[in-house]
């Protein structure tokens, strides 16, 4: 008897080959999908517990250690203010990941609502909302973030709101066409004939069938949001120094780069790249899976 047969994750009809098919929820995403999910899980843990995992105080400055390279107990060395870089990377994970999470959540909620509502109602409502979203499309995310930063004091919050507005039309457009396809299916008509209220059909049936696509789009969007938010913080219009944040660290490390001490910018940049690669691969695999199911 092999250990695989005891695996409680194998449920339902016994497959022809008794291979372990992957973590539930990640099935069909392959090795790359599982590795990406692992990277994201680690990043998530660091984002939540990073402050306590940090070996030193991330905000403690000690100018006599400025730009000192890796030494014992400080595997990444120090930044221009003599702060421990590893601790700042760990502490900076929080805002670097919290921002994109908030952007994706906000844009997904509003975008999904608009998509389902326009696909359901159709007619004039659909035309007006779609026209409004088309205008919003004309604003690149960065420009929108810059405009918002003039109206309110720049912060992670203002950047998050700006990006959520910028991404909503994109989500709404992708999901609207999927919702339209789903709306034309027979089961929706059957439910309508049964006299179910529209919003119940939308939430319980239409929404549930769109869920794989919503999740996949969310993953793709997370990558964009992470890059754009970090760019906004890099420009000084999002998270502000001295707070530890990956985008801010790439920016504050730039003076070090020109003096030949690139470690602060590079280590923060590598963290951003690693998370974005993981989320892109996962998003791609989930999209493939969502499309193969709905077709």
């Amino acid at each position, binding site marked *: 008897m092999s250990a695989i047969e005891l695996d409680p994750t194998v449920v339902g009809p016994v497959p022809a080959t008794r291979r372990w098919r992957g973590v539930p929820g990640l099935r069909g995403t392959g090795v790359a999908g599982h590795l990406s999910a692992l990277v994201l899980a680690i990043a998530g843990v660091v984002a939540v517990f990073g402050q306590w995992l940090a070996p030193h105080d991330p905000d403690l400055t000690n100018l006599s250690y400025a730009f000192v390279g890796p030494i014992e107990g400080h595997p990444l060395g120090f930044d221009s203010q003599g702060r421990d870089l590893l601790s700042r990377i760990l502490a900076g994970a929080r805002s670097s990941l919290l921002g994109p999470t908030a952007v994706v959540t906000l844009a997904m909620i509003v975008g999904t609502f608009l998509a389902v509502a326009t696909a359901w109602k159709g007619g004039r409502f659909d035309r007006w909302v779609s026209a409004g979203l088309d205008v919003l499309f*004309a604003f*690149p995310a960065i420009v929108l973030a810059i405009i918002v930063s003039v*109206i309110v004091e720049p912060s992670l919050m203002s950047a998050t709101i700006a990006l959520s507005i910028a991404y909503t039309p994109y989500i709404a457009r992708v999901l609207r066409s999927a919702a339209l396809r789903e709306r034309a299916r027979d089961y929706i008509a059957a439910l309508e004939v049964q006299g179910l209220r529209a919003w119940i059909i939308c939430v319980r049936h239409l929404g549930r069938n769109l869920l794989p696509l919503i999740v996949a789009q969310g993953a793709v969007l997370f*990558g964009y949001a992470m890059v754009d938010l970090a760019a906004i913080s890099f420009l000084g*219009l999002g998270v502000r120094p001295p707070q530890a944040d990956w985008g801010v660290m790439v920016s504050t490390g730039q003076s070090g780069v020109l003096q030949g001490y690139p470690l602060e910018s590079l280590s923060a*940049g590598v963290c951003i790249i690693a998370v*974005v690669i993981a989320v892109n691969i996962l998003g791609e695999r989930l999209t493939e899976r969502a499309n193969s199911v709905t077709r």
Partner: protein
Amino acid sequence: MLKFVVRRLMMLVVTLFVASFAIYSAMYLAPGNPIAALLGGRTPTPEAIAVLEERYHLNDPFIVRYLRWVGGALRGDFGVSIQLRQEVSTLISQRIGTTVQLVLYASLIIVVVGVALGIVGGLRKGVLDNVVIVATTVSAAVPSFVASIILLSVFAVNLGWFPALGTGEGFVDQLRHLTLPAVALAFSSIALVARITRSAVREELSREHVQTAVSRGIPYRTVVRRHVMRNAAIPITTVVGITVASLFAASAVVERAFSLNGIGAYLIQAALSKDIAVVQGISLVIVAIFVVVNAIVDFLYAVLDPRVSLGASAA
């Protein structure tokens, strides 16, 4: 075809007007008192305030001020920067050249490298294709500002092949100064173009008419050139166009990283110092470029794919 063009142009004009209104009214909400900015700490007499309000039309109703602004913008006049006491259009025209050069240079890199990688990946299954997939997966994840920092660190500081900052004098020197920024700006877009090109080539290769052509003994190169690439050009043109349109906004980040004197870096500087008129003007210019380039892409799409205009007139 004509009907399609007219409809698209009308959409363009409406979008621009709504966008200009959104930009103007958003900036109207911005905190800060232009009179205080003009006086810079001096205590004014009520008469002086009245004169300033008159000169900068601060007492007019919102809608009148908007119409004056948008009317001026149509003639290329974006008002006056209250902080610098200079025409915004002058400030923009001094800087837009750098941005245009940077975007064109980056576009060239994106088209050449992206399409080439995509064609290689699409035509050669196996090792080369896998190399293309891995390379594009990584480069798609590199934000332009991280690419800037890495390029600065390696090629400017350590190897010293390229200058680190600034714009340079004369054509060759400017090209040298803009090379690293252009590569940084192009980096992640190359992946997008390569991916789309690859899948377009793959799709066309599997078409029946292509397989027929191959089986009839027409040389492979000819088949690729005449049948595969001609049809694959449609999605490639679209993705390149959309990418180039977005570069004008994205270049702000790279300009800032390399201390280039373009409109993007200036927009950020103006936003940080709350120079409202400049933010309004440059935002409108960037949005206008974005919308116009997208419209051009749609026209090109209709030219390359005659089915589009048929579909539009039937609707």
